[in-house]
Structures are given as C-alpha cells and as structure tokens.
C-alpha cells in the first residue's frame, strides 16, 4: 500500500473535479476527512511545484468550508494512519474552532523614500559624513538611520493594529523580511468580517501612505493558528 501525502484536514464533501482529476481524494471518518494524494516517490522535495500545489489544494477547499492545513512535507504511512489522525480529539476541536474563520496575511513594505522622512533629524550626522566620508562615519550614520526606521516600523505597526483589532480574532506578528520590510502579520478573521477588515485597512492607508504599501492576501486556511503539535503513538 502506498503512502499518502497529507495536505490538511476538512469536513467530508464532494471534491471539485479540478482536484480529483489530479489524484486528490478524501479519507473520511465520522464527519472528518483527511485531504491526501498517493505518493510514489519519497522524499518530497520542497520544490516550487510541490509548494504551490500544496497551497493550491488547501486554499481551493478552504473557499467553501474549513480546512486545517498541514505543514508542508507531512506523509502518512497508509490509510490506517489517516484514520488514526482523524480520531484525535484535537482535530475535531480545531475543525469546530475554525469553522467560520480564515487567515489573512498582511505585509507592509516601505518605499525607499521612507529614508527621507526618518532621516530628517539626522542632518547633522549626515553633514559630518559628507565632509569626512569615513567608514566609521558611514556606519554611525547608517546605524542611526536603521534605528530611526525601526522606530517608524513600531509606530506604523501600532497604528495598523489599532485600526484592525476590532475585526480580528487573533494576530501573529512576525519580523518583516528585508531592509524595507515594514510589517508581517497573520490575522485570524471571521469569514463575515473580511469586508470590514478591508475597509479598515483602506482607511488606515490614508493615514500611513506614502511611503507604506500593504499587501493583504486571503481568505486563506488558518496556517498560523493550527500550529499545535499532536503527539501520536506510532
């Protein structure tokens, strides 16, 4: 019997043809279902194709009803292992908890012009560097700019959170990636509150932009809100 690649857990239902044609099927038990496909060759490579396929399956199914997405790379030994997984009480609790909820990711990036705004008080330091462009002077100036940018990030994060907190049930705040990264949030939102969240963000950008650009993606399955590790006797 072949191994099964596990995409996530959902409620039993008919799968869209687009997915079943690609070999995705459900292993069902007592109102719960594991989303799987047969796996010929292990190990699974974290390739672009595989990662996007995983995301595509869980996102597609989450559009209609709850999906608890699995971390990429989870493989079940066989059908029996899928049934064992579905029998865990935590699975039922999470399915119920996330019944009407979605994750949205919100990332913010600054335009380079943010440096102009945050560096205004640093003119003396900059002038000193201009007159004597030493390595030490450059590092001192750059360090001061980095600090000013960090303050700006904290300020903007606080403002964004203040604007959206009424519309979200939970938030995971991560460190933004890149020199011009401004914020990186995962938001747990009721499905019927997504529009209100969008409106609140649109309002927030009037106050914050430029130079802040926001990117809101979702509704996605609640990747960031199912991260409990289930201990299972093998």
């Amino acid at each position, binding site marked *: 019997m072949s191994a099964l690649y596990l995409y996530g857990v959902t409620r039993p239902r008919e799968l869209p043809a687009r997915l079943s044609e690609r070999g995705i099927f459900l292993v069902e038990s007592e109102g719960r279902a594991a989303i799987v496909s047969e796996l010929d060759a292990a190990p699974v490579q974290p390739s672009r194709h595989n990662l*996007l396929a995983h995301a595509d399956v869980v996102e597609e199914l989450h559009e209609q009803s709850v999906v608890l997405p699995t971390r990429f790379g989870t493989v079940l030994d066989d059908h029996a292992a899928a049934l064992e997984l579905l029998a865990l009480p935590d699975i039922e609790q999470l399915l119920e908890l996330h019944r009407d909820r979605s994750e949205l990711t919100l990332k913010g990036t600054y335009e380079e012009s943010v440096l*102009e705004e945050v560096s205004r008080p640093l003119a003396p330091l900059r002038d000193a560097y201009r007159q004597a462009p030493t390595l030490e002077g450059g590092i001192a100036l750059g360090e001061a700019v980095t600090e000013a940018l960090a303050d700006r990030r904290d300020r903007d994060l606080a403002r964004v959170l203040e604007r959206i907190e009424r519309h979200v049930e939970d938030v995971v705040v991560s460190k933004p990636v890149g020199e011009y990264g401004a914020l990186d949030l995962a938001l747990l939102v009721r499905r019927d509150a997504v529009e209100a969240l969008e409106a609140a963000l649109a309002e927030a950008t009037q106050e914050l932009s430029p130079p802040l650009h926001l990117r809101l993606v979702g509704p996605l399955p609640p990747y960031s809100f199912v991260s409990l590790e289930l201990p299972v006797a093998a």
Partner: protein
Amino acid sequence: MAVMQRESSAGYITRAPRSSGLADVLEILLDRGLVVDAFVRVSLVGIELLTVDLRVVVASVDTYLRFAEAVNRLDLQAVDQSKSVPDLIGGAEEDGAERKTKGAVEGGMDAIKEKIGLGGRGSDDDDDNED
C-alpha cells in the same frame, strides 16, 4: 494550472484573494500549519536553512553603509520645514517648481532624485488627482 487570480491595487493597498506565487506561501507552508510528529516520515533536507534565511535580521554593516549612502544623496535641507505626511503631498508642487527652474542642466542630480523617489513625486504634481 489555470487558477483565476483576481488581484487589485487601490492606492497603497494590494488585495489578493488567493496566494499568488511562492512569496505569499513559502513561510506559512514551511513554518506553520498542523504538525503531526509521529506521521512525519519524510525529512526535508534544506528546509531548515530556507526558513532561517528568510528570517535573517538585516542589520549588518552592509545595510548601514547602504542606508548611509542613500541618506547622503538626499537633500535634507529642502525638507527642514518638517513636513508631515499630508504636507509631503501638497508640498510636491514646490519641489516641482524648484525642479523646473533648474531645468535640464542638472540632469545627473535630477536623475538620482528620480531614482530615490524624490523627483518621482515632483513629476506627479501636475496631476494630483491621479489616485
């Protein structure tokens, strides 16, 4: 695969109903989601490195020097009227006028300004309602 992606951008917020590309999903797929320890029998070489790389804290000397150079190119004098955000938009006209008096002679300087976004805003001042 032909998934319809509706993506829209209104002002400074981009809206994507589904993830569109690795950048949107990489971290959440590798770093989050349900973990079922006993079931994970495939160890994925390279993932640890990948996620660590994504989280590299960018506060190196290299970054400092790049920021220093970027700030060095800025004309901080011109903005010491301490503009707030609304002022930046309204003030673009002044910048634009100033730019016009300079004409094309200082193209090199203007070109740099364009590149770092100062000139770019100035050149937008004729059609403020563009948004």
